[in-house]
Structures are given as C-alpha cells and as structure tokens.
C-alpha cells in the first residue's frame, strides 16, 4: 500500500537582517494548509540552506529577505543546488524586493517572487500547483 505524500518546505532567512515575523507568518500558513515546514531561523548562509534542504529532503525552499542582498543570495542558492544535483527543488522568494529586480531573479531560477502584501493563500496555492507529488 502506498501512503500519502506530504509537501515539505524549508523556510530560510539568508542575509543579515534580524526580523523574521514575515517568515513565521508564512511558515504558519503553510502548516495550516497541511504542509510540513522546516524553519531554520535567521542569518543562514546559502551553503547552510542548501545542505539543510538536502538533509530534510524538501520539495520547496522559501527564501525570505529584507536586507537587500537578494540579487546575490538568491542566485547563489540556485547555483549550489545545481552543484549538488538538487535543482529539482523549487525555490521561491519573498520580502522587500524591488519590482525591477524580479525578472533577473526569475531568470536565475527563482520560480516566483512574492512581495509584501501577497496573501499567504496565494503562496499556498502556488506551491500546491507547482510541486509534483
């Protein structure tokens, strides 16, 4: 008998900013939609994020950032996933990200960017529609 599959998501905060309220709100919303959310806390390096994602065998990484280093940190995560042959993991981003940076981030391999004000239900829906279970 084959059982059910639960979507596992890693929520990480790369960069140096010290707030994680937004990330926690999203983590809770994902849990309430039936996902298992691994929350890794503040100030994670891309190396730590990718290693944790592999150990936890998640299908999704959600990156949240307020500090403005997204143009470096987000693509770096994608690069490391490729190095580790783990590019099947879906990466999404959120936080304070200027409109003009979004096309570049998507081109680097971030599947979607959610800017402040996006309802958490939209994030839940995006994940459910894009993860193969």
């Amino acid at each position, binding site marked *: 008998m084959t059982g059910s599959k639960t979507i596992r998501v890693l929520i990480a905060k790369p960069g140096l900013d010290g707030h994680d309220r937004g990330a926690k709100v999203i983590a809770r919303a994902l849990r309430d939609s039936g996902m298992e959310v691994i*929350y890794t806390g503040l100030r994670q390096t891309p190396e730590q994020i990718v290693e944790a994602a592999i150990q*936890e065998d998640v299908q999704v990484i959600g990156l949240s950032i307020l500090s403005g280093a997204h143009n470096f940190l987000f693509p770096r995560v994608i690069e490391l996933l490729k190095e580790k042959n783990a590019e099947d993991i879906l990466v999404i981003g959120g936080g304070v990200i200027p409109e003009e940076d979004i096309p570049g981030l998507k081109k680097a391999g971030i599947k979607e960017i959610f800017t402040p004000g996006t309802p958490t239900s939209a994030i839940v829906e995006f994940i459910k529609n894009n993860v193969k279970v």
Partner: protein
Amino acid sequence: MDIVPGILKGDKRSIARLITLIENQADEARDLLKQLYKFTGNAITLGITGPPGAGKSSIVNFLAKKFRENNKKVGVIAIDPTSPFSGGALLGDRIRMQDLTLDDGIYIRSMGSRGALGGLSRASYDAVKVLDAAGMDYIIIETVGVGQSEVDIIKLADIVALVLIPGMGDEVQAIKAGVMEIADIFVVNKSDMDGADRLITEIQMNLDLNQDKNKVKPPILKTVGTTGEGIADLYKTIIDVQKQLQDSGMLTNKRKTRINQELQELIREIHLKQIISSFETQIRIFTEKALNKEIDPYSAAVYILENAKL
C-alpha cells in the same frame, strides 16, 4: 547513487530519500529496510524528551558538538507534533542547531509525528534504523514530552534523558510515576534561572517516593542550554550510563524487548491490512447488520477472523 550502497557509505542524499519513502509509506521502503537491517545495531540511541521550550534542541546542539570532538558521527531526529486539524507541522528544532548543518559527520532530520496518536510514529523507528546503517555512532532523538511520546521514547532509545526546567513547581508532582521512571538521566536545564536547586530537590523527593528502592538512582545534572554550561558533565554521564548498560547486559535486554515489541506490532499491522482488504465486502455487510442490531460487532469480528484462519 543507488539508495542502499549510498546509505552504507553515509551519503546524506540517500539517507534523506529513504526517510521520505518511509514517511510516505512507499512500497519500496520496506524492501530497502530489509536490505539494511543486517547493518544496524551499532549505534547507541539517545532520547531527549521534556516539555516544549525546555531547551532540548539547545542541549542537542551542544551535545552533538561534544560527540564530534570525540570523533563520533551523530544522527539527529527531531520530532514535533503534527497538527491534527491540518496534517501539517511546524518543525523549528534546526533553529538551535544551525552550527551543525555543515558538519560532515552530522545528519539532522526534522519529522512530524504524523499518524501516531500522541506517540511516536512507526516512521521514526525506521528512520533510526536508516541512520544506524549509515554508520552513525550516536543517534539523538528529540521528542516533545507530551502524553504518550514521553513513554514511547523508551521503545526507541537505549538511554533516555528527561529535560526539566525550574519554575515547574507542582508540575513535578504532577508528572506521572511512569514518566519519571523512564529517565536514565535527569537534566535540569535553565539552571541560570531561579529555582534550579529546588527543582533538583523535588525530583529527588519524587524519585524517593516512587522508585524501586533497589534500583540505582538516576543522576540529576544542571545545564544551561544557551551557553553550553554543564554539557561536558552530561556527555560524561551519558558515556557512563552507556558503559553500565553494556557491561550489565541491560542493553541487550532492552534491545531484545524492543525487537519483540516491534515484531508484534508488525504482525498486527500486516495481518490487519490483509484481513481488511480481503474481507472488505464482509466488513461492510456486518457494519450494516450491526447498525440494525442483526449482529453484534463481537460475533462479527470472531466470524471474520475464523474465516481468515491462516
């Protein structure tokens, strides 16, 4: 990489994949576990349990580093409750273990308790076997001490440390005797706060009242999970307890009991599944009949089991 050879080499990707298959109850998981079984039995399993927020993850973090200093490989399984409403879970134990992430000799997995009613899921037992076969010297299992999982942990761990914190006051009185008895080691964490010594006295009193007089009293240790104070002593105590268990033959006894329980659970699980699938119609008919009081469920169950004779 093929999963079995990958796991035997300690490849984290392979370990992670098999644990997912186990959690999802995939058919291939059991076949892979069969192949790995003969490589298990070398790791010492250590259960860390206690109320939410007691500092368990903080202690695991320092303890894992101590094991690494002594060249031991460490697997960590951190189990948090699955929400009974959504089926989801918030797994935050890694927050306290960030420094361990990039250490080659450490693998950490967060697990939701999933189907298990307050206790530990079957998947966590099998995940321990995977880490054991992967060559971990120690496997630390962190569980929240609510209800059944506190007692369930002895089915999984060779050594159990119960983490308590000052300010619990009467709660020590309220801890059921059965829970106090599973602890091989008591850890009084947050001993930087008022009341640590009082808590120790309370634990001692509780043990005096409830424990078998002939049994050795479990050690009680003070720690500070934010600074790592007391962890060196805790490490030493764990090694001492391990030696005692090994030298006295208790470890083998514990494991024998565990295998016996596991075997019974498997028989129950497999047998039940078989019966339910081959008597689906019959069960449905009996359900209707019992509803109309044409048969009672006791006789119906016996009838089905008699027809299911092996």
